[in-house]
């Protein structure tokens, strides 16, 4: 899984098919021996293939269970004396960042439930898509818990002071609600960015257990990105959520001084509503996240995700801005 992940985030073009062109459920309804997948055409699965939520949720569960890993075992096998100062900073920074995953997932679960009920009786296939999103969020939340617990506990083993209860509670502030497509598109982009960050760190780490931990976390972020792309695409496919919202979020990330640059931005917004993980990467981790190579991979992933979600291809951030402005109108 780890090696595949590194290939995936380092060479989007060559491995594009593996990353994004998953087969969906067309091979049949019954075969539990079939390899579980992230369903690429979710709206069609409900609307045209007549799939049921029980079928889709079982596929989600099979996928989740097929790729679980044990954070406790990995953390216990790390040998702290073999870590560099940068490794230590990365572990601490990752622990801080991952603490904000739970409120992000909690927000999305709540939002998905409200939106699902809004569409029931108007577009039942769409209501089912959104219920599948809300239901899947339990796996997402659980996997992010592996990340947070793993990195935070390792930080303690490395001698960092534990975050105070007040800090934990502050980092748990639920994110403000927004349009559902914007929210899910934003999550697909931020998971891609996180995947590249973990890939960057994993390349430089020599200690085998920490390297394995980073690769596992990175692989989780890749599959979260795949799921969020699938859900976003289904929202756009339904016709109920305009593609311009996905473009708006892509522009927010890709524009000069945008979210893509994380804590390295000249001005990081001070928020009292919630904590964005990318605003709070520590020194070493923040610098590694904005190397030219890392930025290029992140841009590529966002542009590809945007294409998968909307069906519209853009080669540069400038094209994203131009198309978004056309879609916004006057």
């Amino acid at each position, binding site marked *: 899984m780890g090696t595949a992940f590194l290939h995936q985030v380092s060479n989007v073009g060559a491995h594009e098919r593996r990353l994004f062109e998953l087969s969906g459920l067309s091979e049949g309804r019954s075969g539990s021996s079939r390899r579980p997948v992230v369903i690429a055409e979710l709206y069609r699965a409900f609307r045209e293939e007549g799939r049921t939520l029980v079928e889709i949720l079982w596929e989600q569960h099979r996928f989740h269970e097929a790729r679980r890993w044990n954070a406790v075992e990995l953390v216990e096998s790390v040998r702290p004396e073999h870590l560099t100062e940068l490794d230590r900073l990365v572990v601490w920074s990752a622990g801080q960042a991952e603490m904000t995953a739970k409120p992000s997932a909690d927000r999305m679960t709540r939002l998905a439930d409200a939106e699902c009920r809004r569409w029931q009786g108007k577009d039942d296939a769409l209501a089912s898509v959104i219920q599948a999103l809300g239901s899947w969020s339990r796996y997402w939340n659980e996997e992010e818990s592996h990340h947070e617990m793993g990195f935070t506990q390792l930080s303690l083993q490395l001698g960092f002071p534990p975050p105070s209860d007040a800090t934990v509670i502050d980092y748990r502030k639920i994110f403000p609600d*927004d349009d559902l497509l914007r929210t899910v598109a934003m999550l697909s982009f931020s998971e891609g960015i996180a995947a590249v960050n973990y890939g960057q760190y994993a390349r430089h780490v020599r200690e085998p257990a920490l390297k394995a931990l980073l690769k596992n976390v990175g692989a989780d972020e890749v599959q979260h990105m795949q799921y969020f792309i699938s859900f976003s695409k289904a929202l756009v496919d339904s016709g109920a959520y305009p593609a311009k919202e996905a473009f708006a979020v892509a522009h927010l990330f890709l524009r000069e001084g945008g979210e893509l640059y994380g804590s390295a931005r000249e*001005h990081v*917004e001070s928020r009292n509503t919630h904590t964005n993980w990318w605003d709070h990467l520590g020194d070493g981790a923040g610098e590694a996240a904005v190397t030219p190579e890392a930025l290029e991979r992140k841009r590529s992933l966002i542009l590809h995700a945007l294409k998968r979600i909307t069906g519209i291809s853009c080669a540069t951030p400038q094209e994203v*801005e131009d198309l*978004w402005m056309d879609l916004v109108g*006057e």
Partner: protein
Amino acid sequence: MAEIDELKNFICRKFSENVGLEPEELFGRDLSLAEVITRSERLKNSVDLMEVFAKCSNTLRKQYGIRVRLPALSLDTPISRVVELFVQECQHGRAA
């Protein structure tokens, strides 16, 4: 190119229309972008605000043939500063 005052008035009017606030409230108090989001019933967050800027830019392109590149601004920026930036961009005379 249109006179600067004309452009400025046009931009102010479009901002007011798109955020749904009276010009006296928006410019009289020189609200920060955070305050604009809070006071406007049409805006929920900075993505909505970004869309307002995009609409204003689109209108400028249609009306005057000028393409304004959208600024990335912090939320403590006063609205007068945004108008200044738009006017400056117009002065650069970027053709649509």
